């Protein structure tokens, strides 16, 4: 993948299975967002090919929403794009899909509130509902926890875990290494054009992380949860 003269990454092999949560971590500029866009088919790679499942949704939940859009409307935009052009009204199946997606992210009681009245966590969940309503086999999420406080971060990552258990392949680019270690089934570390994929314990090695991020990183074990905690500095 190149941007002008800058080669972002070469020859990546990325394999994502349904029913699992994959976290893509790495320093800024490593190409996490580019990789997600290429996987989703939104951006064409400079070279190479992608074999993908039929329906993939890509969302960037920290994106601003127009102030008057409600979660129900947002969730409806995706299915409307896949509706046959000659069907003018909203079919019942589509309404049911939207309701189910909103229920899955816990927004049924806020479905008709304008985006201006929603909290940041609710906006993130509205984007998730929009992705789910298209009945995807995979959901790619670019930075699901930006602008969220600690509680909402845990809430959103827990929800992504549950969605993955439900059979959808979830791939998320995330800055927070500890959240990735705690919730992801597997981690891809993308740095300097290379990708290393494996279980959190295998990939989140202090030496590799220090080299990738250019700052001293140490790894520890959380005494209660048992997951890896990464600390910088």
């Amino acid at each position, binding site marked *: 993948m190149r941007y002008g003269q800058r080669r972002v990454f070469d020859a990546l092999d990325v394999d994502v299975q349904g029913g699992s949560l994959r976290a893509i971590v790495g320093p800024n500029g490593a190409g996490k967002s580019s990789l997600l866009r290429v996987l989703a088919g939104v951006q064409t790679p400079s070279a190479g090919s992608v074999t993908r499942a039929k329906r993939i949704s890509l969302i960037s939940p920290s*994106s601003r929403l127009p102030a008057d859009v409600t979660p129900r409307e947002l969730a409806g935009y*995706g299915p409307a794009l896949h509706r046959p052009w000659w069907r003018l009204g909203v079919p019942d199946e589509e309404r049911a899909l939207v309701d189910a997606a909103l229920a899955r992210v816990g927004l049924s009681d806020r479905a008709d509130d304008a985006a201006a009245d929603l909290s940041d966590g609710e906006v993130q969940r509205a984007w998730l509902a929009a992705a789910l309503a298209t009945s995807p086999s995979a959901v790619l999420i670019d930075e699901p926890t930006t602008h969220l406080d600690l509680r909402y971060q845990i809430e959103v990552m827990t929800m992504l875990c549950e969605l993955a258990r439900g059979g959808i392949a979830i791939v998320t680019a995330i800055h927070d290494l500890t959240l990735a270690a705690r919730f992801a089934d597997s981690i891809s570390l993308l740095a300097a054009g290379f990708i290393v994929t494996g279980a959190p314990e295998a990939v989140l090695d202090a030496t590799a992380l220090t080299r990738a991020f250019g700052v001293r990183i140490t790894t520890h074990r959380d005494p209660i949860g048992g997951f890896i905690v990464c600390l910088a500095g």
Partner: protein
Amino acid sequence: MASVVGRQVVDRTGTLPSSAARTGVRFLCLILLGALLVVAIAAALAAGSVRVPIETIVSSLAHPGATGLAHTVTWDIRLPRVLIAACVGAGLGIAGAMLQALFRNPLVDPYLTGVSAGAALAATLGIAAGISFFAIPLLAFVGGLGCALIVTLVSSGHSVGANLRLVLAGVALSALCSALVTLVLLRNGSSDALTILSWLAGGLSGRGWNDLGWAALYLAVGTAACVLLVRSLNALRLGSLAAAGLGLNVGFARLQVLGVASLVTAACVAVSGVVGFVGLMVPHGARRLVGGDLRWLVPASALAGATVVVIADALARTLMPPTEIPLGVLLAFVGVPFFLIIARRPVEL
């Protein structure tokens, strides 16, 4: 999964509007706009140097074959002109709403793609060359579409930055066309200059049933196409990347939106000259009434645009009798204060 911590504090003095209530309010707004349009058409038919009472208008409409001065004035002069005004207003309103959604910018108007500049240049060259006045609208249509096509082609390519490239290309080509128009005006002498300037200033004087046929045809085609594009436009409101992420072929959708908006705008400019501000102001007002969802904004913009131009055209021919104020000039006088107000209080798309 109710979360209380971190939720914004919102003053809730009553229940928030439900989906059904919001839909009901929007529907009511459309009904009211429709009623306003009917009233505006009736007033426009009645107004003018020959006063025609409402009962006479109704009787004329019910009996197309009747004779008499009032009937001739109503059927042959005012009715086609008023209906053309409605078509032009509706077309510019729809095109403005579509392009503002595509560019996610409330300051976009339908002439962004260079349609008015291309149409003006083609009409100017045609008038200067002595081409029959009946052919000028067709020339303007072709010139407008041609310019929009060049702008679209020049700005095509990588999806990143496509909107900015289009704006720049539109500005550049419009400047070029304006310069050429000025050149022709200066070279050709005063008689042609007056004809050219009055065409450029916009107006519906002398437009008849023939012109209405073409205007209505292009408006019908454009509106039908726009209805099919509403889903794509709603997704594009979220941004190109978000829309692509939900499954939209953004490049193709952009071309469709630009094509339909340019077609409708070119048809309007061909029949009415350069009528500014409608495509910018009307979607703004409509958005404050029914919100930004294109399923409501498109019909609201069409109805409101039709009403504005019908009223403006009636004022243009009745404010300073026996002369007519050019439509574009009148709308500029109304549009500039409106533009300054909305520039101070921008509404999110």
